[in-house]
C-alpha cells in the first residue's frame, strides 16, 4: 500500500513518513508551540480574571431607627435584591473572622432571634474592616 502511494505521488518517502526532519522545520514547530501555549495561558488568565469579577454594582445597608434594617444588593444588570429585617428580630450584629482553606477575611453578620443561621449583611462583596466597623457600630446603636 505504502509502495503504491509513493509511486503515485512521486514524492520522496522520507517526507511522507517523517514530516519534521530538517532542523529549520523543527525550530519553527517549537516556535509555534511556544506562541500557542503563551496565547492559551494568557487566555486562561484573562478568563479567570473575568470570572473572578462579580456582577455586583453595590451593596447597601439602610437603617431605619426603631423600625428595621434594609439590606440591598444592586447588580450591574439593573436587578436589585432587597431584604428587610425588623428591628425586634435583631439580637446582635457581630464581626466575624471567616477562615477558609486559603485565606481569612472579616464579615459582618446579624444574629437573629429564633433563627439558627447568621444573616450576612454584605452577602456578595467582602469590604475591608475599616468600612465594616462604622456599619457595625451604627447597627449596634440602632438595635439597642
Amino acid at each position: 500500500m505504502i509502495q503504491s502511494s509513493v509511486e503515485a505521488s512521486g514524492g520522496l518517502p522520507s517526507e511522507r513518513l517523517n514530516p519534521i526532519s530538517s532542523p529549520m522545520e523543527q525550530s519553527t514547530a517549537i516556535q509555534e508551540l511556544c506562541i500557542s501555549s503563551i496565547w492559551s495561558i494568557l487566555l486562561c488568565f484573562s478568563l479567570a480574571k473575568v470570572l473572578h469579577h462579580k456582577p455586583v454594582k453595590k451593596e447597601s445597608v439602610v437603617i431605619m431607627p426603631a423600625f428595621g434594617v434594609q439590606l440591598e444588593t444592586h447588580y450591574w444588570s439593573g436587578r436589585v435584591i432587597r431584604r428587610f429585617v425588623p428591628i425586634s428580630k435583631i439580637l446582635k450584629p457581630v464581626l466575624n473572622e471567616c477562615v477558609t482553606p486559603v485565606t481569612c477575611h472579616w464579615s459582618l453578620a446579624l444574629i437573629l432571634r429564633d433563627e439558627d443561621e447568621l444573616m450576612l449583611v454584605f452577602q456578595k462583596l467582602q469590604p475591608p474592616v475599616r468600612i465594616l466597623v462604622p456599619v457595625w457600630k451604627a447597627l449596634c446603636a440602632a438595635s439597642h
Partner: protein
Amino acid sequence: MDQQRKHRILMVSDFFYPNFGGVESHIYYLSQCLLKLGHKVVVMTHAYGNRSGVRYVTNGLKVYYVPWRPFLMQNTLPTFYGTLPITRTILVRERISIVHGHQAFSTLCHEALMHARTMGYKIIFTDHSLYGFADVGSIHMNKVLQFTLADISQAICVSHTSKENTVLRSGITPERVFVIPNAVDTAMFSPAPNRLSCDEIVIIVVSRLVYRKGADLLVEVIPEVCHLFPNVRFVVGGDGPKRVRLEEMREKYSLQDRVEMLGAVPHSQVRSVLISGHIFLNSSLTEAFCIAILEAASCGLLTVLPDDMIVLAEPDPGDMVHAIGKAIHMLPNINPHVMHSRMKKLYSWHDVAKRTEIVYDCALQSSDENLLQRLPRYLKCGAWAGKLFGLVMIVNFLLWQLLELWQPAESIEEVPDLVLVQNEHEEPMQDFVEARD
C-alpha cells in the same frame, strides 16, 4: 538590652483542644503562662469536625482551626504548598514575630515551619516524643525532621534523653537544642484530703492501651501480682486496641473482682481516679517525658521520681512484679502531701514559660538571612535528599513571591489586639472598638 520585649508567638500543631493528650496540654499550659507574662500567643491547628474557624479559649487565647481535613491519625493532608496562603495570611494579620511548632509527627507543623522560614520569620521546634531509627516509618519521619531542623533557629526538647534522640535523628548541632522539661498542673492534681487505709492496696494504671505503652507487659504482670499479694486490687483506666487482651486475661484468671476496667477516662476525671489508689504503675516501653507519672506523684501516689518516690524496673514482667512488691513494702512510709509540695516546687508551668521566653529571645537575636545564604544548609542533608530539599525550598520561595504579587501583604488587614475586660457588665467587644480608634 531588650529583656522586657514582648513577643507575638504562633503555636502550630495538629494536636490541640478538643483533643486531650501530652502535646495538647503542653501547648495549652505554655500558652496560658506566656499570656500571663504579657506576650501575645495565637494557636493554629486543623479543624476538628464542626469546630472550624476562629475560637477564643481561656484568657483570650486565639485559636485558628484551619479547615484542612485530617487524613491519618489526626494529621492534616501533607500537600507541601497547600497551606502557604493561609499560613501567610495568619502570620501577616496577627503580626507574628516567632513561629513555634510542636511534635515531629504533625504534618501541619512541618509545613508551617517551612513556610514561615521562607517568609523570613524565626522558628522554634519542640519535640515531644522519642522515635526509633530502624523501621521504614521512622526513617521517613527522621528525614522530614532533618529537613525542618536544617534551618531552625532553636529547638527545645523535653528531656535530656529526648535531646540525644533528636540530635541523633536530625543531625542538628547540640548547641542549638535547649532542654526544658514539661510541668504538671499541681493545682489540679492534689492528693486526697484523707489518707486511704492500707488494708487493701490499690494499684492504678491510666494510659492508652497500646503496644508502646506496655499494655502487653500489663497482661503478664497483673495476674502474677494478684497471685503473690492477695490484698492488692488493680484499677485500669484507658482504652485502646489492647483492651481486648486485658479483658481476656481477666476472664482467664477470674480476676473480675480484683481488676476493674474503667474504659476511657475523660481528662477532668483523671484526678479522682488517681486519688482512689496508693500506687501508680506505668509500664511504658518508651516515653520522652511522662506527664502521667508527674500527675500521679502530684496526687501523692508512689511512683517515679527522686529515689524515695520511685521504684524503677526493667521492661520484663518478672522484674516488674518484684518492683511492685518493693513498692507495697514502702507504702506505709509515704506522705502524699509532702510529695505534692515537692512536686509543686520542682515542676511548674510558669517556670517552663520563663525558660521558653529565654529561648525566644535567643532566637530573635540570630541574624536575618536570604534564600541563597540558607540553601547550603539544606544541600548538606544528603546526596539526593539535599538537592530535593533545596528544590522544595526554591519552589516555596517562588510560590511565595507569586502570592505577594497576587495579594500584596499590605492588603491583608492587621487584627487589633483584643483586650478582655474582667467586668461582666461591660461588653468585651467594646474594647475592640477602642483599640481600632
